[in-house]
C-alpha cells in the first residue's frame, strides 16, 4: 500500500498505471486539489470511501460532524474564510437529503463546495433500496452542477471537473453522487489531471473595452455617483483593486451584507450597509444619486426594496461575472460583464481622480440623524436591560475589528452586520440569500478551520442556536476554538418585530423557551457563562476571548427591541423608517 501511495501522490499523470479503488482515486483527487479538511458523516453507502480515508488520516483532516446539515454549513464557513473549496462527505438517502439546506444556501450565496455523497449499488438504482434517494434530481435546483458516478474510471475526471466548476466563474456548490460499486471497483489509475476547460462552460468572459470606456465616461461626468458592492469583490479576490478604484474615484461606497469587510468598516468612503436594515444615508441616497455603480452584487429584494421605485433617476453601471444577473432585477445603462479583478483596474485607469466632498457630506448628514435617533440608543442604551448593539460595540472594542464574525439569521444578524467592526476581508460569515437559521454554529466551526490563526466569534440568537446546537459535539471532539455569543431575547425576535409592526402585536408562536445554554455547553465540556447585567459585559467578553478553546457566553438582552432603520416590505428604499 505504501508503495502505491508514493506513486499516487505525484500529481502528474503516470505512464505506469496502478490498480486502485474508486475510493482511493477520489481521495487522491482531493489531495491534488489541495484539500486539507473534510467535514463529513459516514453511513452505509459511503463506507468504502471512509475505509480508504482511514489510511489518509494524516493528510486529510476529517471532521466528524453531528448532522450533515452541520457538515455542509461547516464546509461553507471554511470556504468563506479560506477562499478554498469546502469539501463535505455524506452517505446516501437521509445523509444526502440533510445536505439540501446547505446546498441551497451555498447556491444563493455563491459558495464553492464539492459535496460527495455515497449512493446504493448501481444495480439497485430505482428499486427503492435501503437509503436510496434520487439525490441528483433532488439537488439539481440547488447545485451549480451535479453528477452521478457509477463507474470508478470516471472518478478522476469528474472530480477534476467538480473542483473547476465549483471555484471558477461565479462559484457555487457541486454535488457528486458515487454509487457503492464505483467506490469499491478497482481500475487502472492513470493519475489525476486538473481541469481547466470545459467546452460548454465559459466562466471568464473576455472584457470588452468599449463598455469600460462607456462606464468611465458616465462616472467622470457624474455629480452624485454611488458605489454598491457585494460579495463579488471578495469572491474575485479583488479587494485591493476595489479599494484603489474607490479611493481614486472618491465615490462613496455602500455594501450588501455579504460584501461587508471587502474594505474596512472605518474607511472614510465606506458609507455603510444597504438594504432593509441598512444605514439611512445609503438607502435614501440610492434614490438621489445620478450614477449607480453596482459591483459584484445582484440587487436582491432585501437590498432594493420596491423595484419600480428603485434608483429610477440614476444611470446604472453593473459589473458582474454572471451575465444572468445583468438586467435581471435592475436595468443597466452600461453592463460590464467580467471578472472584477480584471474590470476594476481597467475602470480605475480611465476614471478621473476626484473628491466628492459635498455629496459625501450628505451621507454624513444622514449618518448624524441615524446616530441621534437609532444608533446612540442601540449602542449606549439607558435602559436597564442590555441591547444587542452594545454587546457588539463592546466586542469591537476588545477585538479591535480583527475577529471573524459569524452570524446566524434574524435580529442579532442585522445588528451584528450593522455594528461589527471589520478590518479585514473574509471576516463576515453569514447566511445572506437563504437566511438559514442554524447556520452560524457549524459555519463558525468551518470558519475556524479555514482561518486557524484568527479569532472566530459566532453571534447567534436563542432560536437559531437551538436549530444546530448539536454541533457543540463537533467542537468537543475536534477541540476547535470557537467563541459563541448567544444574544438571548427569549423571542424569535425578527418575526416578533414584524408581528409587532405589521400584525398588530399578535405574537403568534414567537415566544420561545430555551434550555440552560451554559449547562448544555457544559455537557459538551465547553465552558460558559450567562450574564444579564451590563457591568459584567466587558469582563465576560474578555474571559470568553482569553479562554483557551471554545467558550459560550449567553447574554440576556432586552426582549422587545426592534431593529431600525427598516425599509418595510413593499416600500421604496427612500421610505426607510427610523422608528
Amino acid at each position: 500500500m505504501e508503495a502505491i501511495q508514493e506513486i499516487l501522490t505525484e500529481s502528474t499523470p503516470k505512464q505506469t498505471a496502478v490498480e486502485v479503488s474508486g475510493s482511493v482515486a477520489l481521495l487522491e483527487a482531493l489531495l491534488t486539489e489541495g484539500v486539507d479538511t473534510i467535514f463529513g458523516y459516514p453511513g452505509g453507502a459511503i463506507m468504502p470511501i471512509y475505509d480508504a480515508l482511514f489510511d489518509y488520516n494524516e493528510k486529510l483532516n476529517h471532521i466528524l460532524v453531528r448532522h450533515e446539515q452541520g457538515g455542509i454549513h461547516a464546509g461553507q464557513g471554511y470556504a468563506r474564510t479560506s477562499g478554498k473549496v469546502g469539501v463535505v462527505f455524506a452517505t446516501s438517502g437521509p445523509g444526502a437529503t440533510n445536505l439540501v439546506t446547505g446546498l441551497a444556501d451555498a447556491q444563493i450565496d455563491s459558495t464553492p463546495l464539492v459535496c460527495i455523497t455515497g449512493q446504493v449499488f448501481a444495480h439497485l438504482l430505482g428499486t427503492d433500496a435501503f437509503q436510496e434517494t434520487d439525490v441528483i434530481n433532488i439537488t439539481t435546483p440547488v447545485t451549480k452542477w451535479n453528477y452521478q458516478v457509477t463507474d470508478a474510471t470516471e472518478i478522476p475526471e469528474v472530480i477534476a471537473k467538480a473542483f473547476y466548476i465549483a471555484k471558477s466563474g461565479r462559484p457555487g456548490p457541486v454535488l457528486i453522487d458515487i454509487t457503492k460499486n464505483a467506490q469499491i471497483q478497482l481500475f487502472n489509475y492513470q493519475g489525476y489531471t486538473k481541469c481547466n476547460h470545459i467546452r460548454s462552460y465559459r466562466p471568464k468572459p473576455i472584457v470588452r473595452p468599449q463598455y469600460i470606456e462607456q462606464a468611465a465616461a458616465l462616472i467622470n461626468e457624474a455629480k452624485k455617483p454611488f458605489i454598491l458592492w457585494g460579495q463579488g469583490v471578495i469572491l474575485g479576490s479583488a479587494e485591493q483593486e476595489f479599494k484603489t478604484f474607490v479611493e481614486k474615484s472618491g465615490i462613496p461606497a455602500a455594501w450588501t451584507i455579504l460584501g461587508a469587510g471587502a474594505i474596512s468598516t472605518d474607511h472614510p468612503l465606506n458609507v455603510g450597509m444597504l438594504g432593509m436594515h441598512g444605514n439611512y444615508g445609503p438607502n435614501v441616497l440610492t434614490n438621489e444619486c445620478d450614477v449607480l455603480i453596482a459591483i459584484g452584487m445582484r440587487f436582491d429584494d432585501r437590498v432594493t426594496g420596491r423595484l419600480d421605485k428603485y434608483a429610477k433617476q440614476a444611470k446604472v453601471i453593473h459589473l458582474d461575472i454572471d451575465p444572468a444577473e445583468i438586467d435581471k432585477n435592475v436595468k443597466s445603462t452600461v453592463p460590464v460583464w467580467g471578472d472584477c479583478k480584471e474590470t476594476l483596474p481597467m475602470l480605475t485607469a480611465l476614471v478621473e481622480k476626484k473628491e466628492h466632498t459635498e455629496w459625501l457630506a450628505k451621507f454624513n448628514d444622514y449618518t448624524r440623524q441615524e446616530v441621534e435617533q437609532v444608533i446612540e440608543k442601540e449602542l449606549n442604551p439607558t435602559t436597564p436591560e442590555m441591547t444587542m448593539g452594545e454587546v457588539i460595540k463592546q466586542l469591537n472594542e476588545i477585538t479591535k475589528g480583527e475577529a471573524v464574525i459569524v452570524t446566524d439569521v434574524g435580529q442579532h444578524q442585522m445588528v451584528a452586520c450593522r455594528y461589527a467592526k471589520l478590518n479585514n476581508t473574509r471576516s463576515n460569515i453569514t447566511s445572506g440569500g437563504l437566511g438559514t437559521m442554524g447556520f452560524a454554529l457549524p459555519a463558525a466551526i468551518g470558519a475556524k478551520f479555514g482561518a486557524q490563526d484568527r479569532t472566530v466569534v459566532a453571534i447567534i440568537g436563542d432560536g437559531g442556536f437551538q436549530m444546530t446546537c448539536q454541533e457543540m459535539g463537533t467542537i468537543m471532539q475536534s477541540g476547535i476554538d470557537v467563541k459563541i455569543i448567544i444574544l438571548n431575547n427569549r423571542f424569535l425576535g425578527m418575526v416578533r418585530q414584524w408581528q409587532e409592526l405589521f400584525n398588530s402585536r399578535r405574537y403568534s408562536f414567537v415566544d420561545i423557551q430555551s434550555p440552560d445554554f451554559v449547562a448544555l455547553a457544559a455537557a459538551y465540556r465547553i465552558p460558559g457563562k450567562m450574564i444579564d447585567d451590563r457591568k459584567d459585559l466587558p469582563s465576560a467578553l474578555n474571559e470568553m476571548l482569553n479562554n483557551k478553546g471554545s467558550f459560550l457566553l449567553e447574554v440576556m438582552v432586552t426582549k422587545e427591541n426592534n431593529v431600525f432603520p427598516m425599509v418595510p416590505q413593499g416600500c421604496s428604499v427612500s421610505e426607510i423608517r427610523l422608528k
Partner: protein
Amino acid sequence: MSDQDIEKQEFNITVYTENQIGLLNRIAIIFTRRKINIESLNTSPSEIDRIHRFNIVINESEDVVRKLTRQIEKQVEVLKVYYHTNEDVIWQEMALYKVSTDVIAERVSVERLLRENGARVVTLRKDYTVFETTGHREETDNLISILQPYGLIEFVRSARVAIIKDSDGFNSKLREFERLEPGEDVIENEYLNKGQKVFTM
C-alpha cells in the same frame, strides 16, 4: 388581461447542449420554478455528433424569455441558447392519424380531404390506415376536425421543430468553444445591447 399578457407571444428557444443525463431536468426546472408552461419540447441530436438540440416553445413576454435564456445558458453543459419569434423561424409539427380503412375505401370524400390537406399514407392495413401530415398547429388541428366525423381512431402530434432563418449553423461556433481560450465570436457582450433580436453570448 393584464399588460403582461398582452406582450406575451410564442417564442422558440433553441438550446445546444452536451448529451448529458439529467440535463433535461436541469433545463425544465428553469421554467417550472417560475410557473411557466412549456408548450412544446423537442430534443434530439443536432447536426454535430454528441451535441443535442432542444426546441422549446413557450408563451411569454420577451423580457421574461431573455432572462430565461440567460438562466439556461448559465447551466454548465449548455453551449448556447437562442430565442426567436415565430416570424424568425421555419417550423413544423408532424401529426399521425389512424382511421378505419373501410371508411377510407368506401368514402371518396375522405380521400379528397386527405389529399387536400397534404396527408400521406404511412401504413395501410386491412383494418386501419395511418396518415401523416406536417405543418403548423392550425393545419394539423384542421385535419382532426375534418376526420372526426369519419371516426378518427387515434391521433398524435410531435413537438415542434424549428430552423432559424438567420443562422449559419453551429459547426463554426463549436470550434470556438473547443478552443481553450474562446475567441470573441463566442464570448461577446453584444447581446447585452438592448433591442437585439438574437440572443447570443
